């Protein structure tokens, strides 16, 4: 900190950077520094990983051992038949649960004022949100791995191969990370983290239960069955089920899920970034 460096307002910048345009390489550097920030936050506050670690365990154990016996019977088998039914469903659901926590996280950041510092710095504003999305996808991956390890421990029977399993995981992660943009927009719009969670749950519950995740829609009344058909979570669960159990059409649910993923990202990512830019 010599006097000269501080005194000279015209500290030399990289040539061509004086208009402040942020190039692709700088963009990547900013994003990686912010990914590191989010990862450090988790390291310093391991409790924040509890949802990702415990949710798959709690849901799997509850549904398999509470409803499994009854449900297995109606599926034409026993509890193990329900294991093979519910695990691909929970794989599809995991992303939504994790994505919801992004909303309150982003909101919290704003209330703490650290965002003000970021927004007075010469960084690409989208990198703040992109980093968040990447870290959440990492949390989804951890959660998914735990789900699958537990699934195999309690007797999940993979009817296809590891490639199909990987495809199902990748599809669920892609879809889940697209959902983070919706919750980021929500987090940037609402006033408190609690409000974000409240609204999140209101959207979450009908989407999760009004789907093919927990029970076959053919057993539901017509109007409910119709709702599950347009619910993207049903498509994702059906796709994961087809990929892991080797039954039913694969291409159609996969393509529909990919279309939802692309659509959600294309609509909500720019909206979230725009909201972030304008937020005062």
């Amino acid at each position, binding site marked *: 900190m010599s006097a000269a460096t501080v005194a000279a307002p015209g500290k030399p910048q990289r040539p061509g950077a004086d208009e402040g345009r942020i190039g692709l390489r700088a963009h990547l550097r900013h994003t990686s520094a912010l990914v590191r920030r989010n990862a450090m936050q988790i390291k310093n506050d391991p409790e924040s990983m509890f949802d990702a670690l415990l949710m798959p365990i709690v849901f799997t154990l509850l549904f398999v051992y509470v409803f499994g016996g009854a449900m297995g019977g109606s599926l034409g088998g026993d509890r193990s038949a329900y294991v093979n039914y519910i695990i691909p469903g929970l794989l599809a659901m995991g992303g939504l649960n994790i994505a919801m926590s992004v909303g309150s996280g982003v909101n919290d950041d704003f209330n703490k004022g*650290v965002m003000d510092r970021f927004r007075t710095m010469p960084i690409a504003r989208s990198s703040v949100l992109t980093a968040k999305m990447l870290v959440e996808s990492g949390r989804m991956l951890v959660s998914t791995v735990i789900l699958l390890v537990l699934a195999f421990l309690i007797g999940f029977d993979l009817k296809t191969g590891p490639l199909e399993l990987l495809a199902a995981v990748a599809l669920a992660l892609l879809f889940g990370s697209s959902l983070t943009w919706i919750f980021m927009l929500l987090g940037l719009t609402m006033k408190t983290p609690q409000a974000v969670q409240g609204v999140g749950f209101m959207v979450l519950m009908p989407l999760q239960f009004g789907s093919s995740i927990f029970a076959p829609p053919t057993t539901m009344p017509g109007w409910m069955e119709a709702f599950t058909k347009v619910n993207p979570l049903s498509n994702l669960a059906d796709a994961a089920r087809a990929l892991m159990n080797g039954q039913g059409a694969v291409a159609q649910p996969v393509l529909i899920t990919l279309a939802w993923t692309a659509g959600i990202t294309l609509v909500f990512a720019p909206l979230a970034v725009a909201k972030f830019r304008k937020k005062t």
Partner: protein
Amino acid sequence: MTRKTTSNGAGNAVEVRGLVKHFGEVKAVDGVDLDVREGTVLGVLGPNGAGKTTLVRCLSTLLVPDAGTATVAGFDVVRQPRALRRTIGLTGQYASVDEKLSGRENLYMIGRLLDLSRKDARARADELLERFSLTEAAGRAAAKYSGGMRRRLDLAASMIGRPAVLYLDEPTTGLDPRTRNEVWDEVRSMVRDGATVLLTTQYMEEAEQLAHELTVIDRGRVIAEGEVDELKTKVGGRTLQIRPAQAAELDRMVGAIAQAGLDGIAGATADHEDGVVNVPIVSDEQLSAVVGMLGERGFTISGINTHLPSLDEVFLAITGQKTSEAADGGPQDGPRDQQDVQDKQYEEVPA
């Protein structure tokens, strides 16, 4: 590149002309003009809700002004926000650090975001931790820092990019006197190193300690400006308090001061409740003269003290009325921290 400097060393680092920012009915900033000369500290003094924070947020690209112009290091806040962000540092009530990260991690992250290499970012973080006496606490989460340490970390964070212009938005609000002094020392040393500083404060004393020039604002408007000494004279300087060894001597002392006819000394009063004599003074010479005279006349003094005019007294002297807060009544008349909350809410209204 050259536009970043304002050509010569004596130029203005910050120029604000006719700046306006309203939030609905609230005229937070209502036509402010001000200049900050390069290498100096401008104190922006005003009560809560005067528009200080809104002003700083406009000048740091967090808010887009409704009208007027502002340039910082030659860059326009509206047309060249990205270039402008390369030249500023902000330490504010609201611009803060990441509480979940340690001090070192915070500074490293900011260094990386400012395009330092990994090695440089690490070195710069260590250098600033050392300088702001945070080396020992470097590995602890910022959430566990004391108020003074937090503020020092904030300052360090805004120094990483060696900004040409620093905004300090009420840097010592809520700090105890000792930590406040620590922060002042840091600001002084930054100024010695050549930083240009725009400092907002509610405290006359802080402005007196740190600022070369002062702009006093109230209800979004500039109501006085000038060098600190000019304004002080306008306000009437300090009050000298003398405590006689025996309270019975209070009135005799007042009489002696009046009789002595010392240059510029008038209006000494006895405060029987506190057991002191209050004498308005404008210079250290007057202080010595009064105390010396009393000594010569055989008074025994058990204590002397001087105090600066409060912000309310400054306002009273400049405008002939109380601060808008104190004078308005109605919803603005709430306690100070409630005012703070209101202020923050206005800031949150989307542009």
